[in-house]
């Protein structure tokens, strides 16, 4: 059992030691490739540097630093990501999908579901975050800050 736990921990350490620098270098390589496709401007218009020069400089710096990362003496065995984080992330996906119906329906549903998934069971509290608080925020921003929200099932009722 202890061996299994140790191997999980060393697996986690390997993720931060090798996989993360690897992913960063891959990201930078892709971004660098994109910079080579930027338009180049004539010498007279370039004002000191070409548009691709500065991003390329930063990307090279990032690649260089990523290469140093595995040799740093700060590798940690991080605890596993708790299920509640994955649930919260999944709810964010639901939020994104629901925004196609209505921004405030999405916000209310997300708030209620997040609260419930984090252990809230009191009806009053759930109503507060699902219904009352989103309504308050909507009218605060609409009437006081004059923000016009995207049209949807609910907001159409107000905007007509």
């Amino acid at each position, binding site marked *: 059992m202890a061996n299994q736990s140790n191997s999980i921990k060393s697996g986690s350490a390997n993720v931060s030691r090798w996989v993360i620098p690897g992913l960063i270098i891959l990201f930078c390589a892709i971004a660098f490739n994109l910079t080579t496709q930027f338009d180049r401007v004539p010498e007279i218009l370039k004002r000191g540097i070409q548009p691709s020069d500065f991003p390329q400089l930063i990307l090279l710096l990032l690649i260089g630093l*990523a290469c140093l990362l595995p040799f740093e003496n700060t590798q940690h065995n991080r605890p596993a990501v708790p299920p509640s984080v994955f649930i919260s992330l999944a709810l964010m996906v639901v939020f994104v999908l629901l925004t196609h119906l209505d921004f405030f329906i999405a916000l209310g549903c997300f708030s209620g579901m997040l609260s419930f998934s984090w252990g809230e069971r009191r009806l009053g509290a759930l109503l507060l975050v699902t219904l009352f608080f989103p309504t308050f925020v909507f009218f605060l921003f609409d009437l006081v*800050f004059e923000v016009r929200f995207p049209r949807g099932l609910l907001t159409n009722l107000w905007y007509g």
Partner: protein
Amino acid sequence: MLLLLIVLATLGGILVGALPGLNATNGVALLLPFTITMEPIAAIAVLTTIYCAATFAGAITAILINTPGTSASATTCLDGYPLAQRGEAGRALGMAAVSSTIGGIISVLCLMAAAPLLAGAAYKFAPPEYFALTVFGLSMLASIGEESSIKSIMSGAFGVLLATVGIDLLTTVERFTFGMNELTEGIGFVPVMIGVFGIAELLTQAGQLGIVRERITLRAIQLPSKADYQKTWKAILRSSGIGTFIGILPAEGATIASMIGYNEAKRWSKTPEEFGKGSIEGIAGSEAANNSATGGAMVPTLALGIPGSPTAAVILAGLMVHGLRPGPTMFTEQSTFVFAIFWSMLLVNVLFFFVGLYGARIFARATLIPLTILWPMVFLFSMVGAYALDQSMIDVWIALIFGVIGYLMKRYGFSVVSLAIGLILGGMLEKRLGQSMVMLDEQWWLIATRPLSLFFLVLTVLALAGPFLLRKIKSIKS
């Protein structure tokens, strides 16, 4: 009207600082969209007020529930909570309020004196000097990461890279826009700030749901006794000086100031053995330092446009959103604006003394708000705030994406503060480099031949090498 806003912002700031998980930086980031419709002077006065008040209020939760409301109050826990356990929570909070007020006022007076002087000196800066100064500002990120200097610099460089997204204003060439019209103006500061400070913290809190906090009841706040003042006045003054100086250094904020202030209070104390067990000097040293760092941090922010702390970086973003560009010219062209900031900071330091003393009992109750109610509300504010700025859904998606990126960065030891500062300074860095290249006939190495530029570049090398050298010295010593 402005006075009323400052009073409301003080109450809001204390509430933000007292809520575990929220701090001055994410509080200012979340409330930034509320200021969009305000006049620039009112908006920035509100943001700086929240900054000062939230920094102070971190002490309330530090003392009462042994959980610093802000990271700058972490050292206050060491002595505040033991005092509270002994039934002296009121005395501890009283000392926190007094030392915070004194530290805050001293630092604002220094800000009033130093910022115009620094701005005057900065008039002599040409693009190469500004470029070298910005590089120095970014190099200071090496020391703010919790885990690794390299990761901190990488986070800053990632922020600088993000600043290149959009149309290059000098050449009108599109960069990293992927044909999306919404990205042609670049990635907005506000949605990124909301993402990395608000949404990322929500995900972090999701992983800490099981933590139970013991809360100590507060009967009454009391002003420190004469004996307390006699014991702590030197520590308060020393920490105020330390905090102001640390605040002036680019990127270094209240957290580092409070640590140094606390350590120095212990080093000079006649009773160092009491530290960690409920020393009133410990609270004074920590709180005077973290509040004085707020005024110090505004010196480079206003005079040079280089943020002096993570929260100052968000305030800098707020200034830019309102069309203002901090720097030497602001002191001559918008002096009313600058003095409004000075006076609002001075006022808030007096206000939170009274609110802190007489309202701490009420604000302490904020700690009772369950996470299951608080964080859904924070999410709602974050999303509406991200949308409200440009009334564009792309900003909502950017906030969400950077929320996830910020969470992953924090999990693997990368600093989200560095990312935010890099994003803010990135545009200026590229612009100054381009101008320097034109000025120096594309011979970039000539930047190092100018005395002031060389001075900043030497400081940069020291800032980058410092953490490694310190680690080496420590390992040799041990």
